[in-house]
């Protein structure tokens, strides 16, 4: 047997394996497959209370509450499609924030909750 066929065949096998693994890694690295969502402030360092819901889950409706210390001051529902981000603006000009803790609590339809907060 022509032994040139050996390295050529090995390269063919490796190529098939690499394409399979690359495709698999692409699927693994796709956030939208992971059924996760994140909550974060749009500006982490200043006093802005605007927050973002980043959805990579099958949930579409998210319920959010804004708590001043432990009291709910406003709440609402937001629709965020798979792979999308939604910024929810929180006007804080009228609120006396000194020595207060503002907490943002967001829950999905399965009542999985996440919260972020700022102390003033």
């Amino acid at each position, binding site marked *: 047997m022509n*032994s040139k066929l050996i*390295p050529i065949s090995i390269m063919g096998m490796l190529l098939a*394996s690499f394409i399979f693994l690359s495709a*698999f890694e692409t699927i693994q690295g796709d956030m939208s497959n*992971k059924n996760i969502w*994140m909550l974060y*402030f749009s*500006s982490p360092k200043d006093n802005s209370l605007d927050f973002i819901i980043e959805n990579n889950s099958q949930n579409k409706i998210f319920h959010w509450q804004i708590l001043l210390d432990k009291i709910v001051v406003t709440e609402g529902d937001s629709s965020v499609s798979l792979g999308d981000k939604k910024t929810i603006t929180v006007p804080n000009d009228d609120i006396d924030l000194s020595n207060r803790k503002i907490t943002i609590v967001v829950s999905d339809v399965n009542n999985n909750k996440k919260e972020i907060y700022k*102390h003033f």
Partner: protein
Amino acid sequence: MSSFIYSQILLYVSMGIVLFIPGYFLVLATFLNKKMSPIETFVVSFGSSIIITDLIIILIGKSPLPITSASILGMILFFSLACLAIYLFRKKRKNEIIGNKQGISHDRFPIKSAAMILLIVFLTIFIRTIYFKDTIFPTTTDLGHHMYWSKQIAITGDLPQYEKADIGQDFTIGEPQPIADFIIGEHLIFAAISIISGAEFISAFPGLVLFLIQIISLLAIFILTREIFKKAEHRYGDTIAITTLFLIGPLYAFATPQAKFVSGGVIGNIIGNLFIPLAIYFYVRAFSEKKSSLLAWALFFSFGLAYTHHLSTFVFIFIAFFSLISFAALNFRTVFSEARRLLRLIISPSVLTVIAAGIIFTFFVYTPSYFNQEAIDTAVGTPSKSTRTGLTLGQLKTTAGEARFAFAVAGIIMLFFVRKIGKYRQAFMIGWIAALALMSLRPDWLFVDIPSNRIASYVVFPIAIIAACMLVHIFILFRNKNENTNKNYIGPVFILITFFAFMMFVSADGFNDNANSLNTDNSANKALQTYAAAQYLAEHSGSDDIILKDHNYLSGDTWIKLFFMRGYNYPLSRGYFKRYEDSPSREQCTNLMISAPSSPEANKCFIGTKTNFTMINPKIDSGQFNKLDNFWQVYSSDEVGIYYRKDN
């Protein structure tokens, strides 16, 4: 889909350019292809391409040119064309003596042997692919560290300064200090492939490159075994080589230093395991065939090893030393005449050119980062930790694989008596196994101060070769016939049963090891959340912000630094708790700032280091932050919480 196909084509073309083309043309220019089989040409072209690409990029880095796709491709093209011109020029010379006409023909394998090789390689690749499908998404610690340096080369277009800034006794972050843990050869090929193809570092490509190197290193062991046994066992040389391939390919496929090293990103070891057998292959051939051109190739691979991995180089020096001793001990009557022959081999244009180029490169172009007294002191001396005092025989047996070890023990004894394989081959085999066995079992005798399990990982290859040799010899003995009766000494049924019993023992042990090592925990989900949080911080922080993350409970945390590219130690990291306990003199800030952020010591650390962002796993470490008024939780996902300290 089209972008996936396009990126795949670019990646494989780039890998071919970086990892095959320059080496192949160097092989052509030196007419080495005329002295080797296609599979040997393939393996040597691959190995030498890694070294040539490294040297080319170092030269570009030391020149006024930036390291870009144009400069890398241009230099590889120039080098390859120069080699091609030399090849064509030499080919035209009628008096050029080419080929190894007196040697054994390497051109053809019997069809059964070729089919067996391909079947074993297919199993080898298939089994590893099954393992890698759960680990190919990049999350592992070592690979993250290495890819930082590769990415730095790619984005700066310059050679990296291996240094990091640590926290000092005054709680502040000091000036960057050199680090000897990284060697340039571990990073350049990844940088080159990424630069040419545009492949992201946080992708499958680093793992695929390591996978490729590992498969080629198994083929390097195959060609070395074939070379060692071709003289003595002309009929069985291929059989021993194929058996070796079986013992290191599909069997024990995941154990150290196999697939686990690939998924773990142990780059230096993986490349070292390619260069060591290739160097030995050329030394064996050079001494046996008395050809200085082959000695030049051996030195070339030794030189490349030194630019790639310090531990492999250290191990190789011991292998060479022990081979020398075993040669002198087994050939003490002819040792001086052999020394004269060696001297004649060395004093030749090709060997002297490689030696001179190596010296000039090392001392005037780029000195490897570990060439300093501190690094040498770390590796040489009385073992300083319990992990460095040597393995027990049982631990070595586990590392080597029980079945392989069993046959190898018998094979080692046999090695001392198989003079017919040739004195050089015998010396190298004894030196190889003796050096690694002693370094693993009794490092104190050799003043080796390196983790013993790391050294033991190198023992797998020589043990597999010796085990394969023993296994084949047993069956040769069984098949021997009585010359008078022309019958086997042992009945064919017994031979068959013994054959299957041995193969069952070896295969069951090897595949059982595979099953135990199979990783069912896919960490991609958790790591993706870490990377999303890192991306958020990269977009919302500047170089004035100091970030601390946790290594204990965040998945893929060492890759976070690739999102910032603000220094090797950026972000700061809380390491494994044991390290703080074992070394009280080590800085404690990174531990305290997460474990006890309200403590006065932690407060000094926050102020001194100016740390204002902390990334932790909320399931483990959120409690201590939630109690504090001066921390804001600014990011929340299932696996990552980010806290901002507003006082800084």
